[in-house]
C-alpha cells in the first residue's frame, strides 16, 4: 500500500525483490547502495545468516527525487529465496506496491526460477492480489555467465504475459538501475491511476 504523507510532502512506496535462492536479490540492493548519493539513501539493513544468506529480509530506503513537490521515497526489500523460508516471504510481500522478479539466467536454475515465480503468484493471490494487475518486472540476472540461457528461452519459460524485462549482471551493477527505474515508473503510474480515482 502506497503511503502519502501530506505533512511531510512525501510519497512512500514499497518494492520487493523476489526470486530463487542465490539469484542476486541482495546483490541488486548492495549495488544500489554502493552507487547512490549518500543523501538519497538510508542504511542498508541485512538480516542474514552467518553465511550471508538472507534470513528474513534486506531493506534499503531510497529517495528518487521530487514529483509535484512531493519527495518520492522507495523502500526496497528482498525476500529470502530459499524454499523453506516461505513464511518470511509472505510477510515481506504484504503491502507491496511493486515486485521485481530476479531470475537466475543459468540453465541449471531454470526450474528454481519457475518454482519461485509460481510461489510468488500463490503468495500474492493469498493477499487478494493478481500478478497481472500488480506493477511487476522481470530481471534476467547473471547474463555474464557462460551457462546463461538465451533471453528468448527465458522469456518463453518465465514471461508469457510479456511483463517489462531487463537483462542484468548485478555483480557488476549492469542493468540494476534500469530494472529499478522500470519498476518505479510502473509503481508511480499505478499510484497515479489510484489518485485520479
Amino acid at each position, binding site marked *: *500500500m*502506497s*503511503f*502519502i*504523507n*501530506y*505533512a*511531510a510532502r512525501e*510519497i*512512500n512506496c*514499497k518494492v520487493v525483490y523476489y526470486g530463487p535462492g542465490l539469484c542476486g536479490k541482495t546483490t541488486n540492493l548492495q549495488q544500489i547502495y554502493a552507487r547512490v548519493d549518500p543523501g538519497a539513501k*538510508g*542504511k542498508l*539493513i541485512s*538480516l542474514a545468516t552467518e553465511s550471508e544468506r538472507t534470513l*528474513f*529480509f534486506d*531493506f534499503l*530506503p531510497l529517495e*528518487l*527525487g*521530487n*514529483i*509535484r513537490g*512531493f519527495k*518520492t521515497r522507495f*523502500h526496497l526489500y528482498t525476500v529470502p529465496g530459499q524454499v523453506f523460508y516461505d*513464511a*518470511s516471504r509472505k*510477510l*515481506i510481500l*504484504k*503491502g*507491496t*506496491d*511493486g515486485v521485481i522478479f530476479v531470475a537466475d539466467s543459468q540453465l541449471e536454475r531454470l526450474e528454481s526460477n519457475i518454482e519461485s515465480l509460481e510461489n510468488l503468484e500463490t503468495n500474492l493471490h493469498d493477499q487478494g*492480489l493478481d500478478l497481472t*494487475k*500488480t*506493477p511487476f518486472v522481470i530481471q534476467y540476472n547473471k547474463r555474464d555467465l557462460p551457462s546463461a540461457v538465451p533471453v528468448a528461452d527465458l522469456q518463453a519459460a518465465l514471461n508469457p504475459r510479456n511483463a517489462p524485462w531487463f537483462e542484468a549482471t548485478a555483480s557488476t551493477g549492469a542493468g540494476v538501475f534500469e530494472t529499478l*527505474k522500470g519498476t*518505479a*515508473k510502473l509503481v*508511480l*503510474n*499505478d*499510484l*497515479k*491511476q*489510484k*489518485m*485520479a*480515482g
Partner: protein
Amino acid sequence: MSHRVLILYEEDQRRLTGNLRSLCAGAKSRAVFLIDKNGRLLAQAGEADVVDTTTLASLTAGIVAATSGLAQLLGEREFSALVHEGAQESLHVSMVAGEAILVVLFDRQSSLGLVRLRVKKAAEEIARTFATIGTQGDRAAGDELGQITDEDIENLFSA
C-alpha cells in the same frame, strides 16, 4: 492495480502527534512512534533524532509481522505486545486497531508497568484518530497528486 493508498493529511498527523505527545509525557518515555504495518513512520513525539526512524520503522514492522505469524502458529489471534528490555533503553511495541504499530522508547526514568498502563489508554485514543484517516477514494478526487502526468514521472529519471 495493487493495494489501496494510505493518505495522511496534515490535520491527521497533528492529531496523531497530539495523541503521541500525551502518551510520551504520561509514560515518562524518551520517544513514541506510530508506524504502519508496512514499516513506514506515521507520526512521532518526544526527543528528536534519538534513533534512525526509517530503520526503526522497518525493523519493527518486521518483528511485528514475524510475531503475528508465530501467534497464528500457536493458535493465538495475536500477541498483543512485545517488550525488548536493554540495560539502558527499552522498547514497548504494540498493535493499535490492527492497523498501526505503537512503539515506546523508554529508559530508567520510567518503568514497564507505567508504560503498559499509559499505552493501554493511549491506544484507544489513537485507534479513534486512526479510524478517521483516509485512504484513497474519500478526499483524493481532484487532489493534486491525481494530476500527476507521465511527464512528471519521466522527469524523475531524466536527471
